[in-house]
């Protein structure tokens, strides 16, 4: 990929993958155990589950080469979510380019909706993409 010019678009923008997640008490318990975190918000979904949803969707896509490095992240928690629930997370490429020093930077976007269609969470992620 050394012949790709600075600023060139590498990957087509658009939806890559959609994943359904049943957010259950069992998942929340695993999350709290992994982070050694006490649950503090009653029946609501812990904020950090947003990151779990993003990573599970990204990994489920199987398109990220090994060695990808996260450079930045933005999360917008739009509405409270009660557990249990079923959430649909959609992964898309917003932009991709080659930086001035030859590194591939990809901007990923995630939208998470309730089964009713209500948007509850959006995330964007800047990733250093392995060549």
């Amino acid at each position: 990929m050394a012949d790709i010019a600075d600023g060139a678009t590498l990957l087509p923008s658009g939806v890559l993958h959609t994943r359904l997640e049943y957010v259950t008490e069992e998942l929340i318990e695993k999350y709290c155990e992994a982070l050694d975190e006490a649950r503090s918000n009653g029946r609501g979904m812990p904020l950090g589950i947003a990151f779990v949803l993003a990573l599970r969707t990204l990994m489920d896509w199987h398109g990220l080469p090994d060695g990808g490095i996260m450079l930045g992240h933005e999360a917008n928690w739009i509405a409270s979510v009660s557990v249990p629930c079923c959430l649909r997370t959609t992964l898309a490429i917003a932009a991709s380019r080659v930086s001035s020093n030859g590194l591939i930077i990809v901007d990923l976007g995630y939208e998470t909706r309730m089964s009713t269609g209500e948007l509850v969470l959006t995330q964007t992620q800047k990733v250093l993409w392995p060549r």
Partner: protein
Amino acid sequence: MTLTEDTIRKYAELTGDHNSLHAAQENAATISPFGGPVAHGFLLLADLLTNLADYRMPLRMRCRFLSPGRPGDRLTTVLQPTGEAHDGDHTFSVLNQDGVTIVTGVLYDTSQLR
């Protein structure tokens, strides 16, 4: 919060993110650009999230990952009001035990911080 190999392993299991950068394998020091295993970026935000009690929606967070977190690192999260007109906005930094800032960011609409 202290990062451990066990925490990283559990988070990899939870998320399915088994990127070799996070694996505590014998040759990690030679194959990783960081010279050894590093934590998932989101693990570095764990302390930040525990600072949010009875949060109110909507909530927005933006961050940049500046340096990796490694097993054995003791992380401290520092929150400061932005001093701007938006009530409740805070900047935050995650520091390791050497005082190096490894994550920096902004939390918006956080008047509920404890």
